[in-house]
């Protein structure tokens, strides 16, 4: 997949260069990208992409020591591509990683685990942010042995939504469970999806574990009476990591009741719904900056509303600014493109200006040189330029400096009539 090679190239070229400074934005976009990957239709693709994205980011950040390991990463990602034997390389790989950089290894492991997981972006994001805060060594140890554990276990289709919590009351428990459910359900269809939008499609399968971690980490005042029951249930299950997520055969989600919980079907359904919602809130929390310490629906909703309003106001302001900057709205597209505006985010200096906003407070990676991998993944700007010019040239060739007729025929745009000023009507028609 092109992303893979380009990300590898990015890694290789940028491990030597110094760290860029737009990382948080790039990281952000990668995470939002992983959030948004919808695995429903393209499981493998999304997996790989999210994994490659994360690995690109991660590895690009590391020092040149990791060049050897990055080759392992690419080997691993090609294994993922084949979709088989994924877990096999990982355990072998991980011990090597341990010595080099304790901070990142747990993250890799989590990333590795969550790639089986399709839309694992949400989990990864959460995991990453948690990881940065907490003691990595101990998280890694626990996570590694859990990885061994469910590598041993078969990924069966039993679909118990049990918690594989492990006495680690932190994020690692959430990822372990997330990993469990992911390793099992890599190609299970998503049922009961409200819509396929935000790629937290696997959310429901990570809901419970995430929520349990949530409950144990923050004290979300959802008034979950299951919270104490959950942790006890989790602890009692211990290291026998169970596979979570729905069965591939059934059309509905099997939920095993936790200890001390009513097994009423209504309350189960309600619990599921509540956990779906809390998972969404968690995603939103990661998205909206400055929401990390906030707990509780009301306050978070408040933050979200403020953020949406501020973004909308920014759009208004920027449109005013654009209107003043170009008095006649005649953008010189050629010139603009030559500036490589499209190398967003993080590489272009303008984006650095707003990176502090985008920066997550929790995201304190020690090696900030993440971006370049992502930027290298961008398509060739020349192609882009050609597309734009071809379209505009079909409308009025006089404005463009070169003769675009050659381009037009090359691009084979069938019906851009000279009268027709609409943009790509034949292509997409701005279809919605």
């Amino acid at each position: 997949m092109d992303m893979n090679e380009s990300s590898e190239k990015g890694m290789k070229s940028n491990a030597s260069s110094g760290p860029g400074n737009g990382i948080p934005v790039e990281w952000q976009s990668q995470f939002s990208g992983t959030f948004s990957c919808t695995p429903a239709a393209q499981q493998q693709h999304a997996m790989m992409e999210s994994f490659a994205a994360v690995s690109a980011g991660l590895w690009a950040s590391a020092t040149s020591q990791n060049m050897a390991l990055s080759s392992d990463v690419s080997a691993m990602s090609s294994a993922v591509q084949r979709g088989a034997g994924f877990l096999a390389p990982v355990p072998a790989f991980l011990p090597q990683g341990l010595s080099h950089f304790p901070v990142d290894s747990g993250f890799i492991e989590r990333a590795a685990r969550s790639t089986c997981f399709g839309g694992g972006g949400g989990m990864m994001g959460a995991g990453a942010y948690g990881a940065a805060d907490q003691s990595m060594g101990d998280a890694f140890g626990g996570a590694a042995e859990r990885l061994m554990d469910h590598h041993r276990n078969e990924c069966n289709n039993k679909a118990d939504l049990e918690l594989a919590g492990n006495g680690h009351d932190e994020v690692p428990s959430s990822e372990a469970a997330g990993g469990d459910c992911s390793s099992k359900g890599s190609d299970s269809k998503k049922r009961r999806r409200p819509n396929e939008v935000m790629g937290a499609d696997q959310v429901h399968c990570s809901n419970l574990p995430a929520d349990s971690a949530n409950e144990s980490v923050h004290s979300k005042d959802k008034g979950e009476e299951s919270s104490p029951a959950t942790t006890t249930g989790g602890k009692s299950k211990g290291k026998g990591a169970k596979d979570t997520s729905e069965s591939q055969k059934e059309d509905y989600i099997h939920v095993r009741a936790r200890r001390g919980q009513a097994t009423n079907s209504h309350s189960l359904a309600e619990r599921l719904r509540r956990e779906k919602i809390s998972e969404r809130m968690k995603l939103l929390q990661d998205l909206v900056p400055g929401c990390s310490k906030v707990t509780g629906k009301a306050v978070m909703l408040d933050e979200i509303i403020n953020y949406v309003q501020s973004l909308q106001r920014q759009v208004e302001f920027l449109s005013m600014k654009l209107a003043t900057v170009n008095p006649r709205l005649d953008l010189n597209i050629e010139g603009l493109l030559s500036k490589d505006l499209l190398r967003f985010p993080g590489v272009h200096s303008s984006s650095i200006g707003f990176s502090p906003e985008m920066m997550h407070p929790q995201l304190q990676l020690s090696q900030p040189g993440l971006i370049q991998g992502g930027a290298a993944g961008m398509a060739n700007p020349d192609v882009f330029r050609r597309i734009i010019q071809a379209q505009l040239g079909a409308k009025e060739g006089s404005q463009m400096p070169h003769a675009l007729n050659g381009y037009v025929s090359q691009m084979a745009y069938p019906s851009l009539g000279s009268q027709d000023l609409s943009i790509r009507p034949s292509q997409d028609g701005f279809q919605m």
Partner: protein
Amino acid sequence: MHDPRRFKRAFMERLLLSLQVAGLTSKSMGLRERRDAVRLSSDVAMASSRGRGAPWARALVARHAAERRNEALLRRIMGGSGYERAAAAAAAAAAAGRKEIRSKKIVRRSHRVCSSRRKRRSLVMATPAAASGAMSSSARRMVKGRLRLLRRLVPGAESLHGFSLLTETLDYVVCLKTQVELMQSLCKGSQQQQQQLLQLG
């Protein structure tokens, strides 16, 4: 299938093109009109590159299509058929909205009647307590109020509840963010261009 990079690229393309079109269509405009044109073209670009997967996109364009003065520009940008579709969506949304408001009023009135008949306290405490755990009523009221606000902010989310509302919000926030980023980079780019021109000429 919401690939952020592809989305961004598509968005940027459409943005540039639609801005170009806007510039052509509106030769002489006051600042406010120009700003509205820019805003419109950027919204349309965002909505169309988002695709059919999100209802807010359709609602956003429908919102713009509902205003008469945007018609020419919209037609240019989206093509005749696209505009027709947007206008139809706008009309449908308006009608549905009115119906919904009416039915909600009826439901609310009946609730009030019911609860005044029975013991108010038992009803109110029984169902919410069962449903959402130990949340105090004031907190729940706050949450409801904020959800209402959110519904007003996010386009096309008038009739969504709970989970789907949050999903829409999530999507919308991500797209708004990219919109802001792209527009900022455009601004900077054209500013630099102008400075260069000034320096040279």
